[in-house]
């Protein structure tokens, strides 16, 4: 029983981080119809940044974290300006470019950081007894609360601020948004940066638990894509619910069925969604 509870807790913790990562993809898809295949690489880079900032440069872990995310944000902005912006409206080229970029970044990571898994130091140590049922690592508990914090700020940003309103205006009707004075180039750029930063945030939060390697990036991207399709393209709520579902199913599946095949559960979910509800849980069945 307590074992099951622990796997569930794991699923929820991972699920929340899944949600953050997926929102990063979803934002960009929703606004500019671009799928960022380099999403997983940004996550990996964030993990390595926070490792090197804290281990090689001695920055305190809790400072290394936002710093890494900020660096990834800047990389995202740079990507948008140089490579993504010229492809707006041309879906095929944007898909090709972000895919090539993912391969380039993956190889660059291999060259710069080497092939070995790295793990930034834990922010906290020890474990906590949960309701007298089981012990749970403090690092994971802290990761969970930080992720919830990130999630809440994202929701605040998108539901309450100028930036969020512009984003929603653009994803509903680009021309109308332009008419009412939304500078969509600027919003696109910031949104792409934010999407990247969210990949970074997921990477920074999760890397002390699961070490990062250059070859691990594609499964990060894939996870995010599955969550986005499951939740429904462009739906924030969908990302949270989808992220939790995937997190819990993967953890239970890995525990009770097969560890090797943990990623296959996600793919099965993807296929099932495409068969039975291709617009996703919270997506709109358009037209």
């Amino acid at each position, binding site marked *: 029983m307590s074992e099951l509870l622990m796997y569930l807790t794991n699923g929820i913790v991972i699920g929340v981080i899944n949600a953050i990562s997926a929102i990063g993809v979803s934002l960009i*898809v929703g606004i500019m*119809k671009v*799928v960022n*295949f380099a999403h997983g690489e940004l996550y990996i880079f964030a993990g390595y940044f926070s490792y090197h900032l804290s281990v090689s440069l001695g920055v305190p872990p809790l400072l290394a974290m936002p710093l890494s995310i900020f660096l990834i944000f800047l990389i995202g902005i740079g990507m948008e300006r*140089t*490579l993504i912006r*010229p492809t707006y409206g041309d*879906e*095929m*080229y944007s*898909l*090709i*470019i972000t*895919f*090539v*970029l993912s*391969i*380039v970044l993956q*190889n*660059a990571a291999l*060259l710069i950081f080497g092939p070995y898994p790295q793990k930034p130091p834990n922010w906290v140590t020890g474990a906590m007894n949960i309701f007298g049922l089981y012990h749970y690592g403090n690092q994971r508990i802290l990761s969970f609360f930080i992720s919830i914090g990130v999630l809440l700020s994202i929701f605040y940003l998108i539901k309450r601020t100028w930036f969020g309103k512009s984003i929603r205006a653009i994803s509903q009707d680009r021309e109308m948004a332009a008419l009412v004075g939304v500078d969509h180039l600027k919003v696109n750029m910031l949104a792409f940066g934010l999407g990247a930063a969210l990949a970074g945030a997921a990477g920074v939060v999760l890397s002390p638990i699961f070490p990062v390697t250059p070859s691990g990036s*594609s*499964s990060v*991207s*894939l996870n995010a*894509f*599955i969550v986005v*399709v499951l939740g429904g*393209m462009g739906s924030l709520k969908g990302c949270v619910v989808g992220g939790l579902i995937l997190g819990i199913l993967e953890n239970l599946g890995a525990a009770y069925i097969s560890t*090797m*095949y943990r*990623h*296959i559960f*996600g*793919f099965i979910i*993807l*296929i099932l969604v*495409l*068969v039975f509800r*291709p*617009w996703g849980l919270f997506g709109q069945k358009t037209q």
Partner: protein
Amino acid sequence: MGNKKLWISFAFIILALFPPLFLSQYWLHVMIISLFYVMMASSWNLIAGFTGQVSFAHAAFSGMGAYTSGMLTVYLGLPPWLGILIGTGVAALLGFGLGYLCIRMGGIYLSLTTLGFSEILRIIITNEDQWTRGTMGLQVPGFFVEYSKTSYYYLFLIVTILLLIVIYKIIHSEMGLTFRAVLNDEVAASSSGINTVRVRVLAFAISSAMSGLAGGFYGHYLMLITPDVPSLGQMFLVLAMAVIGGMGSFAGPIVGSFVLEILSEYIRVYGEYHVLLFGLIALAMARFAPEGVVGILRKKWRREWA
């Protein structure tokens, strides 16, 4: 086909008969691999360049072809040609199934799902090692009783030429016309009576079948099939060849395949930098010269002759 084009193709085919006479075994190998990539990049170009859909499962389908045929020949003792035929069929069916599921939802879904499919295939092949031998690789029989690079070269040459003829015919048929209409303007095509989803699924299934075929031959040439065959790294190379050579043109992927494969042999001397380099070139091309090398040359020639 215009008379001039026919003569040029004919001249190339004649020239292609000679390499085994003077190339070393090593360079003959490079030529055979290049021919494999010509099949891969040209068939990928058929969907990406002609219908605008980006599949990331092209290498995966070639892996399906290779492993299907490989396992049929190893475990059931089927002759390679039959194995390849079945492998091609399996790739076609899978392509049809995946295409049918995703394409009605739009191109983004196809790209996401094919990427997922590639990853999953890699995981399955690596884990089911009692059948696939995992990362050790599956040893399979060759196509010929007596191993000879020269025989393989001619085999690959013939298959490649046949495949290119089929692709050429498709591009210049009614079907090819509907491909281009869908690429040009989906709404207008649909409003003119074209079943755009059917066209896209068909293009995807055909192209997947072709990569299954190419993979089948590839496996029986290598005689050792590893998860590298269906990997995303391989997928990237195929994509880079088409993009750098020139998507949407018949000659682009052919040129791209030879240039990149030969180039990678020279770069490999300095280490595994070719992927990074090709990636950067492909980015620059996609950004500044989406018509690829062939497009650039064509423009230049037109200017000089006009």
